[in-house]
């Protein structure tokens, strides 16, 4: 068994090495076919022009050994492509350079400017006259005079460029993380693209096999159930030692690449293409599909570890099964399957404000475009956030979401479980927590109001597009900033990347606006509390150490006080690790005192008992 365990560890490490190595493997070749694949949704003009530009610049069918040199050249192509397309479009439906020149010549008489509709009519076909006149008639309006031809030329070319750009809009390619990814992913050639299934096995397959060997062998090595936190603080992986730091580096790098430079990890998405194929034949996986697969795989494997580790604790078993269920069915499968039925591919359990895009125009349009069911789903999202969430928090505490349903929580409770002890228990951390989580909630609310108002305007009257400012804030800008700062950096890079440093719930504790919202309900109006068992606490500190939310549980338990804290996610681990059976997560009637009271004397020391009994006689 020992051998199997060690072998499993090596197999797992090998899979991580292969996985990392695949980033640097394979080649990249831009071909006509790959371009069609990348821009399949766009007009043929795009693919054709891009291919032509690529060919002229010697990039087409050239094989690159690294995605970086490849991207260097491709970025240049974007620029050239756009120029080419704009010119061509201007020629056809816009105003070309030669036409512009003609207008200027016709409009300038011996150094003076005499611009009129007739000037346009003299050089342009009727359709173009109409278009340009509409945009420039202010230039010959009464009171408008040009002192120099140059000033006129300047105004005119600006307007013409604007027109041309909007005409060419559909054919332009923007250099951003999405287009970079789309191109690179399809252009990947060589060993990985030719052997996707093999690499799927060498990375995901071996990773799963190795870690399961490691985990399941542990069951046979320590066959008697019970809390076994042995060696956690003696182990480099879990005490912020070098293995932990390495894992931290890996996770942070992963999130940075995933969120900001997905083209670099295009090979990883190619590796999971065969899995995407189960949903749509021949489809190519996006970075989000890759993320979903990794998420589910990590949760399942580490969920099995949870089942084994806490097999004596029914609460942990049921709770882990629940988060796995919601992750696999709701956050993953349904998101893949719903679009097959022309419904929005949304995670139906993802409640606002955790789902910060809920009220964006594109999201709402998505719902409304999908018929009755789509509308119902939109309605469900609203009900979920404003009725179901607080009601269930009232009855069961926020744990029903954080520890039973949520995806972030689910990952934290499975993949993150080995790191839970690293959360900071100091009072100062609690102070900081309140200074970060509530402002994040406020940020989320303001963002949502601005975005929601904009969406309402647009849906009411599509002509309002373009006027997207409310309270002096631009809806798209604030949404983008929120997504960048909170959605990507805080929830992803810090929230998960920092598991091995800050513990497994730093996002849930310091950032999550939904947690903040539910926390307020839990603190002031809920039946949930962790009951302290009279005087039984021996102040050992296991509960505080293993509280992933950094709650100093012991400070309550040793006073005989119930734990009623907005941040408690009800994971139940404090109760599980307590060697004296002091803590119980309970939902009971909330009549104030029974939840919040601090006893004068801890049970067991009846200072007044004898007097009291005397009196009663």
């Amino acid at each position: 068994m020992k051998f199997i365990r060690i072998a499993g560890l090596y197999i797992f490490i090998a899979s991580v090495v292969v996985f990392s190595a695949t980033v640097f493997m394979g080649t990249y070749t831009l071909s006509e076919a790959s371009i069609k694949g990348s821009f399949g949704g766009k007009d043929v003009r795009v693919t054709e022009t891009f291919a032509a530009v690529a060919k002229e610049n010697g990039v087409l069918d050239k094989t690159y050994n690294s995605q970086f040199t490849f991207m260097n050249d491709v970025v240049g192509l974007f620029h050239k492509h756009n120029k080419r397309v704009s010119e061509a479009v201007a020629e056809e439906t816009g105003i070309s350079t030669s036409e512009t020149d003609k207008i200027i010549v016709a409009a300038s008489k011996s150094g003076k400017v005499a611009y009129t509709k007739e000037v346009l009519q003299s050089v342009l076909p009727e359709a173009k006259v109409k278009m340009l006149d509409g945009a420039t008639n202010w230039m010959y309006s009464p009171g408008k005079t040009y002192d120099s031809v140059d000033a006129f030329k300047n105004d005119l070319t600006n307007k013409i460029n604007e027109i041309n750009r909007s005409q060419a809009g559909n054919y332009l390619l923007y250099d951003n993380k999405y287009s970079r990814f789309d191109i690179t992913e399809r252009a990947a050639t060589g060993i990985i693209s030719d052997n996707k299934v093999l690499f799927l096995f060498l990375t995901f397959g071996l990773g799963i096999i190795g870690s399961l060997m490691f985990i399941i062998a542990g069951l046979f090595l320590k066959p008697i159930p019970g809390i076994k936190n042995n060696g956690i603080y003696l182990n480099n992986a879990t005490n912020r030692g070098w293995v932990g730091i390495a894992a931290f580096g890996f996770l942070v790098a992963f999130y940075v690449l995933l969120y900001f430079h997905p083209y670099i990890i295009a090979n990883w998405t190619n590796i999971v293409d065969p899995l995407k194929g189960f949903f749509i034949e021949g489809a190519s996986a996006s970075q989000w599909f890759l993320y979903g697969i990794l998420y589910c795989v990590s949760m399942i494997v580490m969920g099995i570890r949870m089942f084994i580790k806490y097999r004596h604790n029914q609460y942990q078993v049921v709770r882990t099964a629940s988060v796995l269920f919601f992750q696999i069915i709701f956050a993953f499968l349904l998101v893949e399957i719903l679009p097959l039925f022309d419904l929005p591919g949304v995670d139906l359990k993802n409640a606002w404000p955790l789902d910060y895009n809920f009220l964006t125009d594109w999201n709402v349009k998505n719902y409304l475009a999908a018929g009755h069911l789509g509308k119902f789903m939109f309605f469900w999202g609203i009900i979920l956030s404003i009725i179901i969430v607080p009601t269930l928090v009232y009855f069961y505490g926020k744990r029903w979401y954080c520890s039973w349903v949520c995806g972030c929580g689910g990952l934290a409770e499975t993949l993150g479980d080995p790191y839970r002890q690293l959360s900071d228990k100091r009072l100062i951390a609690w102070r900081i927590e309140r200074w970060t989580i509530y402002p994040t909630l406020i940020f989320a609310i303001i963002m949502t109001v601005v975005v929601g108002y904009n969406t309402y305007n647009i849906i009411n009257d599509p002509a309002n597009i373009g006027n997207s400012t409310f309270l002096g804030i631009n809806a798209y800008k604030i949404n983008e900033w929120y997504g960048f700062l909170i959605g990507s950096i805080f929830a992803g890079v810090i929230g998960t990347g920092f598991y091995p440093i800050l513990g497994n719930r730093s996002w849930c504790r310091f950032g999550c606006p939904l947690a903040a919202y539910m926390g307020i309900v839990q603190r002031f109006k809920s039946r949930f509390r962790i009951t302290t068992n009279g005087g039984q606490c021996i102040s050992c500190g296991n509960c505080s150490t293993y509280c992933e939310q950094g709650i100093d549980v012991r400070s309550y338990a040793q006073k005989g006080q119930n734990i009623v804290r907005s941040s408690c996610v009800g994971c139940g681990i404090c109760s599980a690790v307590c060697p004296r059976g002091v803590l119980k997560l309970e939902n009971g009637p909330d009549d104030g005192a029974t939840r919040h009271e601090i006893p004068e004397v801890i049970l067991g020391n009846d200072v007044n008992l004898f007097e009291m009994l005397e009196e009663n006689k």
Partner: protein
Amino acid sequence: MEHIVIIGNGISGVTAARHIRKLSDKRITIISAETEYFFSRTALMYVYMGHMKIEHTQPYENWFWRKNRIELKKGFVKQVKDASKELVFASGETMKYDKLIIATGSKPNKFGWPGQDLDGVMGMYHKQDLENLEKYAPNNKVCKRAVIVGGGLIGIELAEMLQSRDIPVTFLVRETSFWNGVLPAGESAMINEHIKEHHIDLRLGVNLQEIKADEHGKVKSIIIKETGEEIECTVVGLTAGVSPNIDFLKDSNIELGRGVKVNRRLETNVKDIYAIGDCAEQHEAIGNRRPIEAVWYTGRMMGETLAQTICGNPRDYNPGHWFNSAKFLDIEYQTYGWVFGERGRPAYEQHFHWKHPDKHICITVAFHKETKEFLGINTFGIRMRHHAFDKWLNEKRSVEYVLEHLADANFDPEFYKLHEKTIVAQFNQENNTNIQLKKKSWKRIFSY
């Protein structure tokens, strides 16, 4: 300002200090030779096992003491000059006090075994013992085998500690079954089984003859008295109980027995000197309690009580109903009221014992043969609500009443399988009763 000096920064001394601070503005100093800051002795094992670091065992952050104006002094008190109200430290320093609280805890028992002071022989009480253990038993390469002498709560903790690093353990227990001085037979047998299941070499009914040294003065082996068997080992843990740590008081005027003799007010025979916690010995035992109670809870309660007395509300130390808890490897144990083992069991005490057919779960309920009054309960593998039993004991409820309301007392985490039904059914069958288990009621629970 009156200066209260407390020797010992364990639970009893610290509790006294905290409560004195709550009630008054007196100057408070806590002295300890062991550590600068208070830590939880009960958690020492988890540090060696890697569950925690020593800082996690400290119930208060380091700023707490200054904020609450509790002065901390590290040093060993070698003498108490009660006539001049002065302490003398090992370093030669002195300190004046107005009132002195002795809360110096315990030290491990040593019964004069040959070799008991060799390198590699240690108790498991102080932080220094932990450091010693780390030195002599860092892993199973350095420590090929450890022998533990004495089958109490600390002994089994030490066994669990060593086992967490895969160090083979031989466990010498004088009694014929583990802790059967306290536990009824069925429970004690279950623990024996559980110890063996963990591959701990449990030897029952044996005593230590001597500890043998190698040429460097280090432990080499031990000899068992009864059989003469020699067991090779690197480490010997002495866990045959503890006794009050009061040697430094020998030449003072304070009356000493096994511990510092105190009355119900926790006063010694010398005015303005008090003793609490493990080191205090009551002139007369309180109820079924022992004169020296070396447990966490009683130390805390004495601290709470004495703070009242010192701050002008004189009070007797008046502990309520006995309760305790422990963990035997993976089996949690709680007790409320009195359940006696074979030894010292009163004739009127009758037991009802229920055990899960295949899990390490059982309970023993003690009640009065004639009056059927509920006397106490031991639970293993089931958590029970302290408040419920405390109230039932106060109200002198009958065993039938307790069983009828047993569901109220369950304190296991949610979704655990409940055993009250089978427990009550078995009781009914054995006693020809017809107790109907009541459903758990929040209303009653809040009234407990």
